[in-house]
C-alpha cells in the first residue's frame, strides 16, 4: 500500500499549516506525528531525519523533505497545482512569496514582546490594506477569472484563501473593501476538499494561543 505522507511538527499551525492546507485541498490524506517535548525533537535530529536540524519535515514518496517552500513546491507540482508552464509558475511563485511575507508577520506575532504587539499589529494591518490585498485584488480584476493564474485552481488560490482566513482572525474588517478577494474566499472554501477541511474534526489546527507558544518554547528551546 502506498504510504500516506507523514508530517512531523508540533500540534499547532506554525510553518506546517500551509502544507496541511495544500495536501487537504489536493484531497490527499496524511498522517501527523506531533512533537510533544524537546526530547522528541532531539530524537528526530539524532536519527538523522532532519537535514538542517529543523522541522517541518514531511515523509513523502520515500523522502524526508524539509524546508517548507521545498515541501510546498513538491506537493504543488505532484498534484498539478503549479500552473501549466514556466511562466505560470513564475506568477504563482511571485504571488505566493508575497503571501508568505504577510503570513510570516502574522505567524510571528504571538512571539513578540507585549509592548511591541500593538505596533506590529498596526504594521500588519497597514501592509494588508495597502500592499498585499490591493495587489491580489488587482490580479483578479485584471482577468476577471475565478482563479489567480491560468483560469485554473493552483496553490496560489489555496494559499491566498488560507491567508485570508488568517487575516480575518486578526481583523475581519481588513477584507471589506476587496470584493473580489471575498468572492475568491467563498468560491475556494466551497471546493469539496477544502469545505471538508474547514469543518471541525479535520487536521486543520486552531489559532495559536499562549499555551501553544509555551509548548513551542519548550520544544524548540527559545
Amino acid at each position, binding site marked *: 500500500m502506498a504510504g500516506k505522507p507523514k508530517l512531523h511538527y508540533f500540534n499547532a499551525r506554525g510553518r506546517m499549516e500551509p502544507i496541511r492546507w495544500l495536501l487537504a485541498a489536493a484531497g490527499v490524506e496524511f498522517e501527523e506525528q506531533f512533537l510533544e517535548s524537546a526530547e522528541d525533537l532531539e530524537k528526530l535530529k539524532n536519527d538523522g531525519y532532519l537535514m538542517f536540524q529543523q522541522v517541518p519535515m514531511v515523509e513523502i514518496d520515500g523522502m524526508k523533505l524539509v524546508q517548507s517552500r*521545498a*515541501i510546498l513546491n513538491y506537493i504543488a507540482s505532484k498534484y498539478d497545482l503549479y500552473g501549466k508552464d514556466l511562466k505560470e509558475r513564475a506568477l504563482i511563485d511571485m504571488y505566493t512569496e508575497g503571501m508568505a511575507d504577510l503570513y510570516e508577520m502574522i505567524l510571528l506575532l504571538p512571539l513578540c514582546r507585549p509592548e511591541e504587539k500593538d505596533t506590529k499589529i498596526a504594521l500588519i494591518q497597514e501592509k494588508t490594506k495597502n500592499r498585499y490585498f490591493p495587489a491580489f485584488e488587482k490580479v483578479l480584476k485584471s482577468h476577471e477569472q475565478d482563479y489567480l493564474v491560468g483560469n485554473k485552481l493552483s496553490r496560489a488560490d489555496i494559499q491566498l484563501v488560507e491567508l485570508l482566513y488568517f487575516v480575518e482572525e486578526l481583523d475581519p474588517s481588513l477584507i471589506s473593501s476587496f470584493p473580489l478577494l471575498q468572492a475568491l474566499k467563498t468560491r475556494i472554501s466551497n471546493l469539496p476538499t477544502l469545505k471538508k477541511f474547514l469543518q471541525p474534526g479535520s487536521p486543520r489546527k486552531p489559532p495559536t494561543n499562549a499555551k501553544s507558544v509555551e509548548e513551542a518554547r519548550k520544544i524548540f528551546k527559545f
Partner: protein
Amino acid sequence: MLPRLISNSWAQGVFLAHPPNVLLLQAKATAPGLDMTFGTPAAFQAEDHGDCSLRQLKPHSLSQAMAPPDASKAPTELQCRMLCASWYFSCSLEAHIVVFGERVKENSEPGIMAAKPKLYYFHGRGRMESIRWLLAAAGVEFEEEFLETREQYEKLQKDGCLLFGQVPLVEVDGMMLTQTRAILSYLAAKFNFYGKDLKERVRIDMYVDGTLDLMAMIMLAPFQRPEEKQETLASVIQKAKARYFPVFEKILKDHGEDFLVGNKFSWADIQMLEAILMVEELNASVLSDFPLLKAFKTRISNIPTIKKFLQPGSQRKPPPDAHYVDLVSNILQF
C-alpha cells in the same frame, strides 16, 4: 481612451510568423530618455493598460515560452491593446524575437537586439546578488538599473512595476518579476539548472533554501545595531560550521560526484559557492574541516562562466559598506 494603433496588425503578423523554436517575443518600446517601465508620461498614468501593472500580472500574451506556439490563434484585441498602449508614447519600436542563444532579425524593424534581462536594484549585493550569480553562471548578459534615490524607487512603485512595491525587480521574457525566489526559480528552470525531474528539483529546493537562509542572515547583519550585528555574524559562522557545511560535505561524500545533485551542474552548486565565498569573507578558515567542500569550491570556481564572474570588472557586487547601508536605509526609509 486607448489609442488605436497599426500595431494590431503588426502584432498579429509577428505572432503568426514565429517559428516553432522561438522562445519568446518581447516588444520593447524605446525612445530617447523614455523607458516604458520607468518613465510613463503623466497623461497615461491613470490608464491600467500601458504601464507595468498589467504586463507583470499577465504573462506576455504573445510569448508562448515553453508551450508550442499555435500559429492559428491570433492574439485578442485586448492583448494587442496591452502591447500597443505601452508603445504609444515611444518614438521608435524594437521588436525582439529571441531564439535561445541566437539572435533572429525581425524583418520589419531595423537594428534588432536580443533582449537582455534587466535588473532593478541598489548598487550592491542584497537580495539581487543570487540572481546575478545565476545569470552569470548561465552565461547570460544582463543590464542593471541602479536605484540611487527615493524618487526613483517611488517612480517604480507608481508605475505599477512592483507587484508588492518592492525590489528586486527583474524584467525578463516580457514579465516584470519580483520576489527573489520566484525570479531565481524561473531562471533556474529556464537555464536547465533545476534538475531533470521532480525528485531532483525538490533536493535542489531543499539545498538552496538552506543556503538562502544562511545568506539572508549575512545580508541583514549590516543593517543591525553593532551588538546585534556581532551576534548575528558569530551565529552565521557557528551555523555554517555546525548546521549547513556538514550537510553538504556529507552529500558530496555519499555520492562522490562533482556536483550536489544529479551529477550535473545546477542552481544548488551556484548557491553553494556563493554562500561559501560569503562566509569566507567573514572567516577565512571556515572550510578547514571540509575538504570536499574545498575541492568543490575550486572546481565550481573554475567553470568558465563562473570564473569570468569572479574576476574584477564583472557585475558581481562587493560586500556592503557603510555607504551602501545608508543608501538603502534612505531609499527604503527605515
